[in-house]
């Protein structure tokens, strides 16, 4: 099974851990394409949407991430995946050197150069952990398609702030592995599972971190299932209904937190992975 990983940054813990977990389970990625750490286009888009102050806060949160003091990583549930020979792998380049994964840095994952490189790798499946909104030419390259781990149960909860919306909408917390298409979280579902590991969960950041790690294991299971032919995409029901949610306002987040019984509010940048 030839797998390629797409990442939002060479320092994305989710992207690095995904590549590492694939390698650790015997499916060393044949390549990884990442946006640069300091992406001018993203920053300009954030600037246009948020203005100077908030985009500066966003950039700072990316450049100086808050790491867990014990594990040395932002998402402690990915700590084990990022460990190798007693050291923590912090970048895609380190992952590449350790596991022999070719890395491409591209400011646009849809660019003709990126797609050409992807074709050269001739992947069976691409695992998306972050980056651009993917266009059709890229989506058409891998044999099985591009898969994404979505932190909500589809089709009920599409879009942003999925765990928070799930809590307010009375939909069970869960993760769905699905194929990506031109819509927002509208592609066929591959694996869907409720998430119940809430003991000791003390914030939405913690919840999200747990769900990311949970979803990562589901991705591994999905890739294995696709290879074995035991998992196939199921078109989402209820396509005509608008299930897309957007970023939740802080006050509603605080109400969702009450339902979960945790600390309420995320700040800029913390919800981006």
């Amino acid at each position, binding site marked *: 099974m030839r797998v390629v990983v797409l990442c939002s940054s060479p320092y994305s813990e989710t992207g690095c851990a995904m590549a590492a977990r694939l390698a650790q389970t015997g499916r060393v990625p044949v390549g990884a394409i990442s946006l640069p750490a300091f992406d001018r286009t993203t920053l300009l888009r954030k600037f246009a*949407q948020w203005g100077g102050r908030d985009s500066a806060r966003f950039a700072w949160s990316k450049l100086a991430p808050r790491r867990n003091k014990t594990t040395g990583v932002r998402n402690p549930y990915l700590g084990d995946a990022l460990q190798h020979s007693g050291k923590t792998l912090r970048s895609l380049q380190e992952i590449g050197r350790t596991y022999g994964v070719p890395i491409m840095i591209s400011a646009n994952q849809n660019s003709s150069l990126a797609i050409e490189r992807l074709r050269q790798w001739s992947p069976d499946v691409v695992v998306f952990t972050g980056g651009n909104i993917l266009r059709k030419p890229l989506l058409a390259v891998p044999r099985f398609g591009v898969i994404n781990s979505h932190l909500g149960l589809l089709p009920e909860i599409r879009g942003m702030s999925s765990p928070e919306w799930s809590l307010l*909408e009375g939909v069970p917390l869960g993760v769905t592995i699905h194929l990506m298409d031109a819509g927002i979280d509208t592609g066929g579902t591959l694996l869907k599972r409720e998430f119940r590991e809430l003991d000791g969960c003390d914030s939405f950041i913690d919840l999200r971190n747990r769900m990311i790690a949970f979803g990562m294991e589901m991705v591994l299971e999905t890739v294995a299932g696709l290879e074995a032919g035991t998992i196939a995409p199921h078109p989402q029901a209820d396509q005509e209904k608008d299930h897309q949610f*957007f*970023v939740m306002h*802080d*006050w509603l987040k605080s109400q969702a937190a009450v339902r979960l019984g945790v600390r309420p509010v995320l700040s800029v940048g913390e919800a981006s992975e």
Partner: protein
Amino acid sequence: MVEAAGLMKGPHRIFPLLFRISADAMRSRFDQRTLYSYTSTIRPTEEALGLVIDWILRAQQPDGGVPAYYSLMRGYSESYPEVTGYIVPTLYDFAHATSDSDAAHAAERATNWLLSLRMSSGAFPAGLHTGEEQPSVFNTGQILQGLVRGYMETHRAEILEAADAAGDWLASAQSPDGSWSGLGAYQGAAHTYYSMVAWSLALLASETKATRHRSTAERNLDWVLKQIEPSGWTGGINLKGYPTFLHFIAYVIQGVLECGIALHREDAIVAASRSAWVLLRKFEVHKALLGTYEAEFKRGMSFVCLTGNAQMSCVWLRLYEATGELRYLNGALKMNELLKQSLRTRGNRGALGGVAGSYPIWGAYQPLRYISWGCKFLADALMLELRLKRAFEARACAS
């Protein structure tokens, strides 16, 4: 030119004007082009509400009339009967929410001033209060809203009598198809944003139980619903020489929605929600609503029409209340953050706490002005937000 001449009479206004223009130029270029920020509440809602209500109370004239706007070039305008009318419910709502007797007193003074403007036909005059006596359907409808609320609060017979007469005049001026056109209609043409008039008549009918007022409202509502496209586009605004400002689109939607709620017309609520949903999605995706739209919600001018935004916040909050759809509440809360950030906490009395016509201040809708109806709609949106948040929390506690 008249506005600019104001600077000749009041040269002291030049520096605040230049300051405002350069501040908005800097802000719109380098920070918050659309004022959108979902990150955190910068200004508490209660504080912002106090600021806008204070703007209204400061602007009110000794005779009770409320000016249309404060211009950065010529100062306060003459009193505006239309806005004075529909500011009355806002002032009473604030008085009840905060036990503020000043606001209740201001509402009574406004009502008394309106009663003094009654025409013998029962209609109320058009435009600013300049002494001209041209009857106006829209002004009469908007003033009727204030009269109905004034009567509900005080039970004074003369207020009900004036409201009843206004309702009768509106019924007599209505065309057979349910619209209002000709004498008394702006530019002599029929407009769908007169759904606001139908809403006032529905409120009057609820209070008096008079079927004639209810049927006048129903006829207009039926006509407006026929003009709304399946896409949600609010056709028939029909203002010659003006772009379709968000303010008027929001008027159509708000009038249809509130009329639908008052008359228990599900078809109207569904139609309003279809249009409101289109704008909600645009706001969520683009982080802003445009100041104007072309037909079928195609892209118009890209300034921010703050009043239209506040109206849409009211619409989304009422739709959340009516349907329980949380995405309306989410959009409205974010919109209110945007609007609260637009308020000025320093400056002269006409700018402090005022809602500008446009952001940046030179945008096409009411440029270089702080407008009283902008304050009214923002106050309504903030009061709705506070009320619905309390209800949400109470439900959460109960469950």
